[in-house]
């Protein structure tokens, strides 16, 4: 049982990493001391409509846009209630309309520290609370100012998250989390840009953001299959809108409200595959601002053992 939970940690972290602007571990599970987990996940997001400000439009010069993310990750239990995680996604972008070239490369490296503050059982009821801090910084000098094709926002990012979870009988759980994302500046390659006025600089302020998540999850088939439904809001707290028929830029106020489903199967009864799991995910952006109305599909594999 514990083992599964430890594996889940990896899964959920990878799953959360799907949003390019929110590689945020947001589950309520801890790995034990000296346990280690390797994971690899692939995710593909596509859209053929995007919000220009709050106005949903199509653009045949983009057509269908595709963002592929390949994310390796490693997680380690420093103590039973303090875990550290490291991940770095490789991103590739393209579109089937227009003539603009796609981009590919390693995006940001993210280090996450997770602390379990409370875990209390009351008979069949378990309540836990955690705090998570994640720091991310670009791996290379990819160009953030090439949206929507850019690999990421090209800025340092610090996320601080609080998580609360209630679990009944180790079968069903409800989790909520709230995070604030501080973002710094991104250096671009043009000496001037317009952001409701002139900016004579190669730096852009990337707006901070808030993230709220609610997840309802449960276990099936003797704890070998886990399923989750999620509702996720990620909103910039400020920023400008994409101007009419213009390119987006990192200063934009980006918002997304997304629903998702996630399933994970653990090879518990097949000896040679013990420690492995497979997972699949789907999500859909419902509402947004200055972003694509993306549909994402993902899959991944994890392997976990004691160091």
């Amino acid at each position, binding site marked *: 049982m514990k083992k599964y939970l430890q594996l889940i940690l990896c899964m959920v972290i990878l799953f959360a990493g799907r949003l390019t602007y929110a590689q945020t571990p947001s589950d309520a599970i801890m790995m034990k001391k000296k346990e280690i987990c390797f994971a690899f996940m692939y995710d593909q997001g596509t859209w053929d409509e995007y919000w220009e400000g709050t106005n949903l439009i199509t653009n*045949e*010069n983009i057509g269908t846009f595709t963002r592929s993310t390949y994310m390796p990750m490693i997680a380690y239990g420093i103590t039973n209630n*303090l875990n550290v995680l490291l991940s770095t996604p490789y991103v590739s972008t393209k579109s089937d*309309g*227009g*003539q*603009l*070239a*796609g981009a590919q490369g390693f995006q940001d490296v993210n280090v996450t*520290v997770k*602390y379990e503050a409370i875990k209390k059982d009351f008979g069949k009821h378990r309540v836990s609370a955690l705090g998570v*801090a994640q*720091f991310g910084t670009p791996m290379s*000098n990819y*160009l953030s*100012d*090439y949206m929507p094709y850019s690999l990421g926002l090209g800025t*340092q*990012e*610090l996320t*601080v998250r609080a998580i609360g979870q209630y679990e009944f009988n180790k079968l069903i759980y409800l989790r909520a989390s709230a995070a604030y994302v*501080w*973002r*710094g*500046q991104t250096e*671009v*390659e*043009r*000496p*001037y*840009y*317009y952001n409701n*006025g*002139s*900016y*004579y*600089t190669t*730096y*852009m*302020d990337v707006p901070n953001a808030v993230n709220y998540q609610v997840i309802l999850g449960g276990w099936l088939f003797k704890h070998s299959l886990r399923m989750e439904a999620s509702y996720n809001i990620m909103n910039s707290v400020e920023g400008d809108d994409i*101007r*009419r*028929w*213009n*390119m987006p830029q990192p200063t934009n106020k980006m918002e997304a409200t997304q629903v998702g489903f996630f399933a994970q199967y653990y090879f518990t009864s097949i000896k040679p595959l013990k420690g492995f799991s497979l997972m699949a995910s789907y999500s859909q952006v419902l509402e947004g601002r200055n972003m694509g109305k993306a549909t994402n599909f993902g899959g991944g594999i994890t392997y976990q053992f004691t160091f």
Partner: protein
Amino acid sequence: MKKIIAFSISLALIIGSVTSCENELPTYFNYSAYEFSDLDIDGGNWQPILFPSSTDIVIDAPAAVNSAEYQAELAELKSSAQNLSGSQVEAVEYWTNNPLIRWNEIALELAAKYNLIPPPNPDGTYTLPSAANPAGPPPFPFAHPPYTSRMLAYLSVAQFDGLITAWHYKYEYDRPAPYETDASIPYAYKKNSLPSYPSDGAVIAIVSRDILKAMFPLEHDYLNARAEEHLNSLTWSGSNTTSDIEAGKAIGTAVKTAALARASADKMSSAQAPKPVSDAIKQSAINRFGWWWDNQESPVRPVGLTPLFGQVTMWNVPNVVDVRPGPPPAPGSAEFEKDAQELKDIAKNLTKDQRKIANWWSDGLGTYTPPGHWNRRAKEYIIKYEMNPLRAARTFAYLNMAVMDAGIACWDAKYYYHFPRPIQTMVGFKTILGTPNFPSYTSGHSTFSGAAAEVLAYIFPSEAQVVRDWAIEAAESRIYGGIHYRFDSEVGLETGRAVAAYTIARAEADGAD
């Protein structure tokens, strides 16, 4: 507990590192009032652009310094310039004693604001901006590079002529600055011996406001407010009395009237040709050369950008054909294939430096355009070399006349040769910059930059190498961006230089050197 404290401290440090090492993000050029390197006391004898001479606008002599009328003005000025509020001090510091710089920045900002290409309608058609219905949608204008080059040329020429006239009467009537007559009047800037009547600041405020209002009809409220603050700053800074300002306004109004009269007849209003005319231009190229350019966007834009901008009245080139380059190499020829292959090779192995150069000079949609980029560099040199407003206006005027003429020459070549872009001749070719909606040959950036660099090299000889290298880099940037062949850029640079030679010949004869 210790762990929690340590964790909190490290967290605070990281938040600090993410948010506190941030760079200043300047929204205008950071300079203060400065001492002019020269006052150009003979500037009133320079040759204006729009007027036969500096005396065509008549300004009456001011009241005598010891008159009751002027003494009352001084008393009024003294009280206005004292006990300024915080926002008044800010305005004085912002406008400085060379407010030409600020109006140039306002012009660039409006160019960036309006440099948005009209979007397609739901049925796949396009509605073009219309001066008759500026609110649109789409709003008028679309401040693309030709539009912006012309806007800046009229702005700068009118400022220049207005200041020549102001300089003429300043030294003819020789009214000392208010603080020289009454030493108790505070003066916010650097003292000098420039006479105060008529106010050069008021000339700049009125000319700039009114030219920009004509160019950006949706910005009247904004421009009125900027001009009002500027005019007030002349009082708050202790620079000018009411009669100084009124005389400056009179010059400004006369000059802008002449400038806008020229603008209304320069054929810009017909530059965005209708489709039948555009189709005929394309057919001429097919007949002459056998090739043609087509817009590659979806939905296809039925007409390229300003096909008849090449027919707009030039400032200093007698006839656009005088600077029309020879034809480009035909698609399929060895010479063409060499430059086409270069684009494929660059796209395959683009270096970080090449990418940066492409983006640095891109100045595309939503920005101040290449003419704006060169104005920005001129502005920085004007401050570096501590030019007075008249000398600064001369720099902008010749720069922007050359840049607009370069645009006209380039557009003439673009639509005469109607040469296809790389994305049209090379199927499946991908670029890192968007391909503009007009033919390839010659490169607009290269032509603008070739002309701009030559004028700046003439005015700032010690920067000649730097600005010429920039022009070459700007021309090269379009090749790295994948949107121009090398021959587009190289020939564009040459055309720009040829255009600038006409501009510089005129400048050399205007009495300022």
